[in-house]
């Protein structure tokens, strides 16, 4: 991972991702927060490409930046405008401390342990290997994931249907 192009790309993309992630925290309007979130998703997809994981990068753009973000946007549009100010709750400080603590421990562990680095070059093409792995080694989780998706889809629809009997008090 030493040719200059990838190194430059890595620093730019990680800067983009982290800045837009912080943007989601800082910005006052929730819709802008979602736009920053989409930017960080695309940034992470770019990082995948520097790790030569092309199939996962494109899936990330398709699912996260294409579908999940639209879901979040629609959720914001359907919920009240009162809470769109992206304000913080009262336990701001403890959350900040905990987040920093987690960051440091993970960072320390990352730098301190010597990982079993292999001298392998980047993958040429990953899609077919992933496909084969999904269908012969991980076929059971694959089926369970499809059932999970079906259940989630039906659950979401039933919950939101206006005439569903599940009324409050």
């Amino acid at each position, binding site marked *: 991972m030493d*040719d*200059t*192009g990838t190194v430059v790309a890595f620093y730019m993309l990680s800067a983009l991702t982290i800045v837009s992630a912080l943007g989601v925290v800082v910005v006052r*309007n929730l*819709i*802008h927060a979602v*736009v920053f979130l*989409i930017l960080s998703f695309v940034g992470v997809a770019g990082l995948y490409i520097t790790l030569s994981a*092309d*199939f996962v990068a*494109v*899936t990330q*753009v*398709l699912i996260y*930046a*294409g*579908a999940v*973000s*639209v879901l979040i*946007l629609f959720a914001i*549009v359907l919920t009240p405008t009162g809470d769109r100010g992206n304000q913080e709750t009262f336990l701001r400080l403890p959350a900040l401390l905990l987040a920093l603590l987690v960051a440091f421990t993970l960072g320390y562990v990352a730098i301190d342990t010597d990982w079993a680095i292999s001298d392998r070059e980047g993958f040429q*093409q990953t*899609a077919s290997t992933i496909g084969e792995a999904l269908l012969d080694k991980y076929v059971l989780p694959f089926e369970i994931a499809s059932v999970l998706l079906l259940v989630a889809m039906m659950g979401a629809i039933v919950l939101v249907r206006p005439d569903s009997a599940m009324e409050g008090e």
Partner: protein
Amino acid sequence: MIRLAEWYDFRDLGNTVGSLLDQIRDWGAPDWVPYVVSGLIGVVAILLWTVLSVLAFIWIERRVVGLMQNRIGPNRVGPNGLLQPVADALKLLFKEPITTREADRILFWLAPIVVFVPTIVVFAVIPFGERMVLADLNVGVLFLIAVGSLNTIAIFMAGWSSNNKYALIGAMRTIAMLISYELIQVLVLLAAVLFVGSMRLGDIVAWQAGYGVWLLFLQPLGLLGYIVSGAVEMNRSPTDIAEAESEIVAGYHTEYGGIKFGFFYQAEYLAGFAIAAVIVTLYMGGWTLWGVEDWVPGWLIFLAKLYGVFFIYIWSRGTLPRLRIDQLMAFAWKFLLPLSLVNVIIIGGEKLLWQEAELSSGEALPLFAVVNWAVAVVLIVGWAWVLGHQRPERVAHRAVLTQEVGAIHFGEPAPTV
């Protein structure tokens, strides 16, 4: 056919650029310079080509639709109207791009750009000629869909930030439409990729050239699904719901003036070219034409096919009326989705049959073509009948002619056409 000397043989620009890059390497530039130069050439070529062909097609479309409506079309500006698109572009440039007071300024300004970028990026993956592809990803087809799904957000931004009732309805309608037709696109392209076996567009073109058959003949249902969802994605012909003039005035780009509207207008044409390019590459053999590409430049064949397919969309825009949004959604979920699922199953079965039974491609492909076309016709007619296409209150009929005044004919059977 004698091969002309390498560098001025324009049959495929690929090796012209290749010889240029070797030239640079001979001058001893560091190894990343030719890579950057070829990338630059590709980007500039695509941008130049898209801008020019959009301008050309604005003129062609208005003339052709004019002829369809037995009127002349633009002929005032420049020699019989040729400078009309340039005049439009200039007009848009000089118009003041106003921002409404209550608009969400940042999103309002950002939306046209975010609409424009994904549509241009699609061309990076399309193989124009022999070695003329900017980014030869081996997840090409998936990249097309991923980038296609990005403009849903841009349309939401445009509709939401311009703080206008019409824009909001238009944006909501377009997003609902895009998401449901994106699903159809994924299933249809899945079938195509399944049969060819690789997602790299270069491989798909090579496969079609190798077997000398176009996927168009093998997968009619797939083509039908893709053409319709392509028409939806570029808001054109029977599905221009977003800016249905007769209903909500201009859809999500009501509030945009000046060059911002120019971006939306340009992005719409580019989406048209992108869809046409994908149809040509996937279903009509890309830049190959059964051997003709040896003496006619590949990229010329590709462009000819692309403009032909785009003409179909112009033609349908000139004739077909518009579907209502709920009818369009019903068409997607009730008609196209089951059909494309069945299509995937059939193609999967054929692929398995082809490999297991070791049929030679000579017998297998024509057999599959006939079977697929028969199944397509049966399915379309049958499923439409099941969905109640010919149920009594949908049958076209003429008026009842009567002489006696004051008679009530409500509910009587009418003479059918």
